[in-house]
């Protein structure tokens, strides 16, 4: 994983939390497309509503674990 800024090493715990968050964001983001492509439009619709909530909760959870980033 790349550091947050050049020459600033990312602490191992932060890297682990961010990798986990990345996985969840990609998972929530890919779910609707997966359902639509597999001929499950109703499930696709449901996951389309779940996707933004899931992504946002993941991000807010990441901030809770690592602290709010500088504005």
């Amino acid at each position, binding site marked *: 994983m790349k*550091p947050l800024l050049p020459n600033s090493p990312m602490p191992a715990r932060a890297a682990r939390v*961010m990798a986990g968050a990345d996985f969840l*964001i990609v998972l929530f983001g890919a779910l609707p497309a997966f359902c639509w492509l597999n001929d499950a439009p109703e499930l696709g619709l449901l996951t389309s509503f779940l996707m*933004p909530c899931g992504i946002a909760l993941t*991000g807010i959870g990441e901030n809770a674990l690592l602290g709010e*980033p500088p*504005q």
Partner: protein
Amino acid sequence: MTHARAVFLMILVTLLWSIAGVVTRHLEAARSFEVTFWRSLFNALALTVALTWLRGPALWRGVARWPRALWLSGICWAVMFTAFMVAITLTTVANVLVTMAIGPLVTALFARIFLHHRLPARTWSAIAIAGLGIAWMFGREAQAGVSLAGTLVALAVPLAAAVNWTILQHGNREDAESAQDMLPAVWIGALLSALVTLPLAWPLMASAHDLGLLALLGSVQLAIPCLLVVRLARELPAPEIALLALLEVVFGVAWAWIGAGETPSPATLTGGTLVLAALVGNEALALRRR
């Protein structure tokens, strides 16, 4: 330039951007890819003149040495130009503009995933609210049996914009000297878009009336505001530009409503309100923290 003048010019930029939908609705014979072809071609021609005037003829002698990031950015611009016009011929202007409005939030998400820029809670909340707005619009249209093709094509615009920004940020991080004038990327995009859509547009059907309107789109709706906004980026902070840019959605929907009788559906109005509220909240909080 004073702040008030910069704000006035930014509002003018959004007014110019917003005429695309209503002008497209008044075309007589040109359809789909042909509309894209002519608009991109006129845009490329207008930018050729403008860039030669602004940067001098020496700019073109260095084309072969333009950095890779500029060409990649040009491809993204080509996708944006093409997808926008194709989408507008497939669905309502309001649907396209609301879908495009999520651009800043998609960009923030891409920055988080690919550049590991952490996002504040306000941006995560805005992503959730705007995402729900788009899902609501999609869902209601899917239930009503309306084709989602136009909205899906329109989604390519904020996605390409996010890829564009991420490529540029990545390039700038690796090599600070590569942070440079990106106007030629817009020119590359217009040229590529015209080249790619020409075979799909054949045989050309546009009347003289259509060509007049498409020349207006390529120059007044696209080239002039692009040049202006690059200049204004030096005068106004990014959140303020993003906030003012939202006026394009309001103006664009209003023009299509007044000038082409295209009443937005209740689902689009609800979804659009959610998207705009999320963006305004996010940018207003960003401005307050400055």
